Every structure is written in C-alpha cells, then in structure tokens.
C-alpha cells in the first residue's frame, strides 16, 4: 500500500561516521526491502544508533551515501523527514508534559488542526491502553508506558519507515511482548520497520532479515535462517542420573549428532553443540539423541534446548566474545518460539527452557 513501493526502503553504501578517532560507523552497506521488518543486531557501541541517526537525518554522514525511498538523507533531508518516524532511547517525548499534550503537540507540528489533533491523540492513547494516564505527566509513567507513548508519538501520521532503536531494552517480558505486538500491527499496515536490538530473540521474533553489526561494520547479513545456519542450530544440555555413564553418553552424542560435546563441571552434565550441517531442527536432533540414550539405558534426568545466544553468534562470526556489554545477557529465546508454535512467549532473559525428561 506504500506510495513508494518501488525500490528498497533504505539503501546505504559505505556509510561512515567518525567521532574524533573513533570510527563509530565504518563502511556500512545495507539494503532494506520495503514493507518488512529489518533487524540490526549488535552489542552496545556497535554503531547501531549512530547508523539510525544518520538515516533519520539527525547526524550527517562523514562518508558514503544513504537513501531512504530514493531520497538522499543529506541533500533531500526534508523529504526524508516527511517519510520517517523514529523511536528510541533518545527520541522520546517531553517528560514535563502529559501524554495527551505530547501527542497533540506533535500532531499540531505535523499539520493537524486542533480538533483532529485532539481526536487522533485520544484515539492513539485509547489503542495503546493509556487513556487513564492521558492526563498525567510522562515523567510519572512506568517504563512500559513510556515505550508505548514513544511509539504512539511516532505513528501520529502513519510513517512509511519507522525506526525503532532498541525498543524493548530495559522492559520486563510482558511489556516487551506488548511492544512486539505493536510492531507487528504497524508492519501489517505496510510500514517498513528498521529495528535495532541487542537481543537475538527479538530480531528472531520480528525481523525477516537481519544484519549483525560490530565495531561499525556489518559482519553478517541475511535471512534469519541463513544467519542461524552460520552459527549452528543451538545446543542440547543434558543431566544424567548416573555420572559413570557420562563418557558413554558423550561418545554416543558425538557419533550420532556429529556435534562438539563439552563436559561440564557438574559430573552429570554435558552439552552438545549442534551443527548446522543437517536440515533437521535442533528439536529433532535432540529428540533423536534422547531416544538413543534411552535405548542404551542411560537415564536422563533433565534436558534443555538452547538457541545460539548473541554471545555465541558473535563468537561464531568474529571469533571473540562480545565486549561484555550486551545488556543483561538475555539473549536466549525459548524453544517453542523457535519451532514456530508460540508467539510472543519469549522470556528474553532466560537462556534455555528446562524440560523435565
């Protein structure tokens, strides 16, 4: 339904931004198809926010080019501003004003008349479940309410492109799921979304394509499937009843799954890192392994299936750990989200699901 349906929503070539000696963004090439959610994944300080700020015309690039629906972000900045909205930890609303006042203010700035501005503000507050808080100053809002009013402020006019810069950082799992629902509703109406996040599961839940960025460079780009394949399917963690059977279990897993098996400090625990070589999902591979172990009479007390965490993605892609700043380390989604049965149930902060065997 977009008026700008031809061509990509965003196209950058060799985008560079330096702050003094630091090359915050160091030659980023991105192509974001229109009408999709595009995930930009990376740790703190990777250059995600700087990239978004350049695309939203808030920062001037030091090198390279960026176009939004064909408009150059420097030369045609005004046209770009007319098509995009942004929501982030930096682009928020006025804390001294109430929810209603903020939305009316922005609606007026976008050219709505007084009455339509009021109506639009009231409708959005209603849709976002903020009617009761409409007359309160935003500084008294909770984190989840803040994020809602921030997003509401960004869709006063339905934008062609919406930047969401770490929309769920610092939110509890429930508020996070609600933000995800909002994002899905926005995309369903044809808006392109560029989402930056530190959380692999968030990108997994929402984005169709993902770019992983580190030290200002894109180090991997592709569909979710491609990206996951490059880092392996995940890992199976097992706890055996009998520590004596562990060497046997280790051998069996290695032969069966062609997986790298790691022995934990706990004498009954071991972890198999699943390869991406087979087309079987991590769950299928795990089920096969459990079956084999049972046939050999090795009792498994407990097992869990973990998706590759952001740390593992980074380890796989760069050969080193993240710089220890990836938030609360909440990167593992739950397994049912992975198999596509559950939506919006990711805990975000858990690293794996415990399943009694």
């Amino acid at each position: 339904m977009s008026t700008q349906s031809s061509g990509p929503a965003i196209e950058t070539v060799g985008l560079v931004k330096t702050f003094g000696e630091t090359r915050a963004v160091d030659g980023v090439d991105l192509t974001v198809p229109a009408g999709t959610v595009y995930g930009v994944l990376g740790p703190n300080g990777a250059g995600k926010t700087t990239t978004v700020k350049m695309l939203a015309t808030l920062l001037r690039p030091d090198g390279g080019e960026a176009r939004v629906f064909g408009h150059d972000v420097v030369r045609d900045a005004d046209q770009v501003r007319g098509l995009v909205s942004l929501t982030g930890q930096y682009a928020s609303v006025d804390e001294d004003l109430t929810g209603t006042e903020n939305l009316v203010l922005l609606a007026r700035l976008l050219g709505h008349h007084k009455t339509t501005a009021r109506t639009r503000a009231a409708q959005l507050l209603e849709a976002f479940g903020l009617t009761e808080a409409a007359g309160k100053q935003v500084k008294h809002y909770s984190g989840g309410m803040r994020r809602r009013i921030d997003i509401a402020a960004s869709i006063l006019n339905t934008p062609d492109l919406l930047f969401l810069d770490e929309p769920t950082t610092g939110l509890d799992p429930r508020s996070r799921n609600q933000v995800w629902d909002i994002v899905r509703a926005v995309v369903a109406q044809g808006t392109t979304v560029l989402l930056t996040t530190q959380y692999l599961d968030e990108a997994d839940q929402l984005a169709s394509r993902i770019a992983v960025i580190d030290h200002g460079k894109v180090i991997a780009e592709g569909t979710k499937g491609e990206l996951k394949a490059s880092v392996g399917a995940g890992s199976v963690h097992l706890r055996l009843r009998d520590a004596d059977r562990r060497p046997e279990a280790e051998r069996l897993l290695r032969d069966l799954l062609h997986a790298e098996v790691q022995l934990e400090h706990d004498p009954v625990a071991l972890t198999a890192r699943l390869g991406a070589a087979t087309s079987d999902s991590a769950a299928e591979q795990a089920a096969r392994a459990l079956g084999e172990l049972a046939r050999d009479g090795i009792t498994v007390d407990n097992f869990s299936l973990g998706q590759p965490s952001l740390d593992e993605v980074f380890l796989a892609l760069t050969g080193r750990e993240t710089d220890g700043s990836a938030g609360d380390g909440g990167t593992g989604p739950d397994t049912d989200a992975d198999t596509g049965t559950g939506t919006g149930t990711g805990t975000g902060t858990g690293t794996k699901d415990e399943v009694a065997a």
Partner: protein
Amino acid sequence: MSTVTGTENQELAPVSTESLAALLVAKERPQRPSSPSTSLTFGWRAILKIKHVPEQLFDVTAFPIMNLLMFTYLFGGALAGSPQDYIQFVLPGILVMSVVMITMYTGVSVNVDIEKGVFDRFRSLPIWRPSAMVGYLLGDALRYTIASVVMLAMGLLLGYRADGGFPGVVAGIALLLVFSFAFSWIWTMFGLMLRTEKSVMSVSMMVIFPLTFLSNVFVDPRTMPGWLQAFVNNSPVTHLASAVRGLMAGDWPADEIAWTLGWAALFVAVFGPVTMRLYNRK
C-alpha cells in the same frame, strides 16, 4: 533513565491492536504547517511547561522585584538625593537590565532539553527548522512580559510615574521584547554549543554582567573615565535603556530606537545562523 513511580505497579490496560490497525490504515497526511504555525505550537509548549513547572516563574517575579528594591534604596540617596527621585530615572533602566539578564535562562533550557530525548524527535520532524528555537523565544516573551508588568506595578507603588502614560509604557516594553528576542539568539547558540547546564550558566554570567552593568542604567556615563564612556555609550544595552526611558517619559527618541533595532537585527543576523548550524549538526 528509569522513572520508577507509583504508577509502576498499576496494571496496564492492554494494547488494542485492532483499533491500532484501524488508525494506521489512514495514510493521508495533512498539509505541512506554515513556519509561524509551528513556531507558535512550540511557543504553546513553552507555556505548557510553565503551567506544569510554575517554579520557573520565580526568576521573572521575585528576581526583578529584588533588583528594583535593592538598587533604588541602595543608590537612591547617594545618586539622586532620595529613592523617590532616583526611581524616576532608574526604573526603566532596571527594567531593561532585569529582562536582559533573564534572557540568559533560554540557553539553559535549550541545553536541558537537548539532554533529554525530545529534542531529537523535534529535529526529525518535517518542519521549518528554526521553529523549535523561535518557539522557545516566544514562550520567553511571555515571561518577559510578566517580569515587566510585575516591575512596573512595583515601581508605581514606590512612586514611579511614567510621563508617557500607558502608550509610552507599552511602546517601551514592546521595544524591550523585540530586543530580548533578538538578543536571545546568543543564548540559544551557547545552549547548543556548550556541554553542560553549568557551563552555559557560567559563560552566560560572564557575558551578561559586564554588558548590563557597564551601561547607563544606573548612572550618567559622563561620570566615567573616557575609555569606559567609549564602551558604555556604544553598548546596545545603553541604547535600549535610553530608548525605553525616553518612550516611558513620553518622548520619541528616534536615534536610540533606531540604534536598538539595528543591534537587534545584527544579533539575529549573526547568532541566528550560528544557532541553526549548530542545531542541524548537533
């Protein structure tokens, strides 16, 4: 940026994705608003902020009253024989000094706003670029009006009589507001240029104190040494004070008015573009 308050524990109403979708379907956009319209909207924001944080009116009420009382009774006897005689001369001057001093808070509020997130949202809007800055200054014009009215009321109580009557007083205040609006672009520049609220404040003090005190607000410049007279006689604050004093006394000091407006134009021409450059680059 956690804002933990009492509302944190309240159960939030769910997001209605259906009504959200219905709202998003509407793709038509209103026509872009004009530059006066967006500037006035930002001015409205400034007024809303006064409504929510009324403490900020302190510096346009208590501060001018304090100035007026202090200087009238401190210098009155020595300089004019009595405070009652002195106030006739000094009130327009103190009015000018106080309002010009108050303008420096603009820089602080610009600086505080940048620290908060809302600034980047304004900058990403498809609107006339200077409107956010002009909006600040329009909101401030209201504050200056309040300060002027408060001081004049206090002055009347102390025995000040304006020979120019109501029209003269209104003309004087209008000229003062025009000058303050133009002069404030220095502060928007500092607000955008300097890193912290504190540094904005201290740099502003360094500018504002010499500029207001080294003028003809308190005494006749002829009593000053020659080099100081050269500065004082050419200071924009001196021209402004003379013009306001003349207008309120019922004269038409065309030269001083012209000088004042000339300075005002110069301030906008120099500091306006610098401010906007900083605003776009921030």
